[in-house]
């Protein structure tokens, strides 16, 4: 997968997480996957434009709770509307920044509204489109970004 597409997403994620939680996430080993899964909670965003694709950000339960707490100044459960809206908003922030970075490099993208998925081990089949999965280790838990972008020729 083209790294000039991946690069802005990783940078954006690292920046936003650092801004919210004040800690730098540690990047783990990347791999290409055929099947994605959402262990606890995830936010799903679609991309259209010069290239099409999507991005899925997975959070551990503990990490998601921490982010919800920090962003709202109070605790909400993952099942509450407020909790899910917060995770959705985080997804928007990351992709929004990534798209700005891509725009600076001359790639034009649009975003679809985020969908938040909560559940235990939800499996998502990519139907043969390769997905790059990048795990991050944080003090409060794990975060995983799954990106899948194909250039429209």
């Amino acid at each position, binding site marked *: *997968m*083209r*790294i000039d597409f991946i690069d802005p997403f990783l940078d954006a994620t690292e920046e936003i997480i650092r801004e919210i939680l004040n800690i730098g996430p540690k990047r783990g080993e*990347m*791999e290409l996957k055929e099947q994605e899964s959402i262990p606890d909670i995830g936010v799903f965003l679609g991309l259209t434009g010069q290239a099409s694709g999507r991005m899925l950000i997975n959070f551990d339960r503990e990490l998601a709770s921490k982010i919800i707490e920090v962003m709202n100044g109070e605790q909400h459960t993952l099942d509450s509307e407020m909790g899910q809206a917060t995770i959705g908003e985080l997804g928007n922030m990351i992709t929004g920044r990534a798209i700005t970075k891509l725009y600076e490099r001359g790639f034009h993208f649009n975003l679809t509204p985020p969908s938040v998925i909560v559940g235990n081990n939800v499996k998502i089949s990519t139907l043969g489109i*390769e997905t790059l999965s990048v795990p991050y280790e944080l003090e409060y838990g794990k975060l995983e970004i799954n990106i899948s972008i194909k250039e429209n020729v």
Partner: protein
Amino acid sequence: MTRQILTILLDNDIFGIDVRVIQEVIKAFDVRRIPDAPNFIEGIINLRGEIIPLIKIKRLLETDFFDLYKNKKVIILNFGEGNKIGLVVDKVLRIISYENTEIKPLETISVSKIAEYIIGTIERDKQKISIIDIMPIFYSSNGSFLYKRFFTKNNTDVFISKNLFYKIKEKLEKINFPFNNLTKEGVIKYISKIANIKGKSIEEIIKDDNIFSTSHFSFNEERTCFFENKPDMYLIDEIIESLVYEKKKSINLWVLGNPTGEDARSIAIIFYVYKSINSKIRIINSYNDYDKLKSGLNKEYKESYLKNIPSSLIEEFFENSTNGFVLKKEIEKTICFDFFCPNPKFSPSNIDIIYAPNFILKNFDKISLLMNNFYKALNKNGKLITGLFENIENFENRFKKYYIKNRLVFIKE
């Protein structure tokens, strides 16, 4: 005594050839290629009914630069007795006269083979012109015409004793180069070929550590300059040329094993040299380390990286930047950096050439996975260029073995 020479340009230097052997100067036209000929043979042309072989003098005499001039001229040399040769040169300048007394011997000792054939230099307009003694290049000392020997090839199998085999193995272990089913045959052939050329025994040859210090034995992913592995680049140039003649709509290449992208950029430069090309070019530079790949993105280069590119051509390919040079945008845009690990399912597709020097050796544990990826990625007739010693025959039978310019290449049928 006054003599006349025709001055020609080879890279940055001016050379002179005695006019008495020159029949005429023409433009290269309708060149027929000869399969499997040595790399200094450009092909043959039909000049008014006479078949004349074209010889790239730069490659024959191993001058220092990679061949980046394309609008070449051909000097037809006539040695009499029907012995004619077309000499392919970068540029033809003019005819000048000189007195024998003007000739000065060569001041510096050059390592390149061309120095053996230089009579001396003269000066015109503050420029040095080296006069080439053209006859000895093409005639042996007993007066027989040599060019016929250029067409003979030598691909016979080599057998060596067990003793020698272990000696070679020992040497390679020292430099951490694997001597296994993939490389064994290639290494032995290579060493015996060098022994043949130098007229020494294999035993003597392997005592010299320099033999094992060439880029063919290197696992290094970093490059110190563009066109670092010249024999490989000549080979790729050759294949690209044939793709350009085919007038394909799009040409896709896949380069592996050099994360920072110097190999990919060298290849992009070769494409750029074929200005008339209408195909859409795409060069995928892939690697399995994200951070190394990222460091190669928009890389700026010091001047030392450009040492294989004639100084008169640097401006054509590079732009100045704050810390040195960057490749021009229109060349750079043909390259994309791609994150790739050998995997069961995904690989680029529609690829015409895969260039993966010593990449299979490095990922030897995943060889079948990698071969699957390569096979899926290639078009019909797509070519897989491995390292000089990597013979995948024993591991993969879907590719056909093929020789281009005496170099093993694998083709998907």
